[in-house]
């Protein structure tokens, strides 16, 4: 595996996100700012600096269609940035967390986003039209330790989370008024917000990255014990396969390692 291009932006990068057209990248250079770089004529130029957080920014996600950036940080806050003209305007989102936020992801339909935190909770935020405000709902009491990574299922309702207690859990995040019940999907017809669908206890060590396959049938997550766990038919009786690597711990999994008809 060879790198396509190598650029040094900072000594240490905490997290990053690509813009929908892949021409810009936003990242945190291990401080409380977010730098946005644009590729202009073969050179990367710094175009914006988003400064609002008080502590290090741990999660950035750039939504595909609505061109919004959500950032979360160790200061328990989250901002949604909208581009108005040449400037990015932040909107504070009250997450009601009492510990730092560790990861964030927009849902596939971009009307919600999920935040995993060190408070052993997951926060789902959605936009309320009447009050012009982002509201958060918390999933409490189900995790034993910090939530390191979150991933949305393509149906916009199921959410998979991994945590430092080694478990991967799938929750339903159905919110009345934001999500519409489709009669086709019978599996999530009787689940309310925050209900845990399944808990996967395959890893003995911390679990770090999680992703769904594009069809939503298979789930993959990686552990500190350098193993990837693939789970098919997530539901009452999941089928799991493990792949062990000989090298060092794995930290994240990308969405490209899936094929539709088996491995």
């Amino acid at each position: 595996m060879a790198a396509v291009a190598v650029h040094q932006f900072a000594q240490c990068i905490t997290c990053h996100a690509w813009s929908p057209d892949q021409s810009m990248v936003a990242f945190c250079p291990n401080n409380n700012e977010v730098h946005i770089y644009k590729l202009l004529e073969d050179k990367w130029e710094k175009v914006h600096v988003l400064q609002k957080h008080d502590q290090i920014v741990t999660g950035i996600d750039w939504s595909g269609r609505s061109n919004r950036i959500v950032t979360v940080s160790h200061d328990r806050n989250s901002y949604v940035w909208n581009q108005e003209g040449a400037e990015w305007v932040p909107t504070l989102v009250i997450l009601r967390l009492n510990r730092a936020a560790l990861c964030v992801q927009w849902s596939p339909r971009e009307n919600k986003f999920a935040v995993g935190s060190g408070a052993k909770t997951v926060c789902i935020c959605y936009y309320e039209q009447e009050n012009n405000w982002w509201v958060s709902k918390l999933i409490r009491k189900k995790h034993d330790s910090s939530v390191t990574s979150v991933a949305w299922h393509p149906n916009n309702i199921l959410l998979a989370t991994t945590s430092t207690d080694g478990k991967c859990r799938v929750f339903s995040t159905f919110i009345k008024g934001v999500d519409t019940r489709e009669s086709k999907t019978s599996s999530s017809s009787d689940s309310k917000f925050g209900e845990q669908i399944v808990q996967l206890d395959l890893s003995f060590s911390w679990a770090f990255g999680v992703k769904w396959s594009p069809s939503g049938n298979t789930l993959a997550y990686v552990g500190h014990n350098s193993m990837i766990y693939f789970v098919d038919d997530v539901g009452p009786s999941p089928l799991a396969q493990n792949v062990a690597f000989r090298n060092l711990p794995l930290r994240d999994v990308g969405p490209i390692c899936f094929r539709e008809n088996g491995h």
Partner: protein
Amino acid sequence: MANTLRLYLTCIRNTLEAAMCLQQNFPCQEVERHNKPEVELKTSPELLLNPVLICRNEAEKCLIETSINSLRISLKVKQADELENILTKKFLRFLSMRAEAFQVLRRKPVQGYDISFLITNYHCEEMQKQKLIDFIVQFMEDIDKEISELKMSVNTRGRLVATEFLKQFI
């Protein structure tokens, strides 16, 4: 004798390469807005990994404890007789007092050991992982040499002083 040293150091080096995967800027779960080395606190057992003890023989061992954002290495150095005991204690105390200059050194050794290192994710961000491992392994090699040299110089000096003193009785 020399090849057990090589094996011992290789084993430690491999363990450290696996243990030093700490790029986690992990916020404290107990206290908000704080960031503490979890291996020192030990408040959340799920964030700690199993400690590994590597023994060369009964007298020399190395304890490596890992957690999600920090790593503690404690060494027990070979001390054959009383003189080496005193020399080791004084020499390592001299180094521990100046722990700020070393950055990765711990001011007090862990109970039962002679010297301890504390490496956090911040150290791994600023410094290269391979170089840190090289430093620790080099330190272990040099400690033995230093103690032997000190012991030899103490013995030599003792002999010279005694010779001079007893000349007056000849």
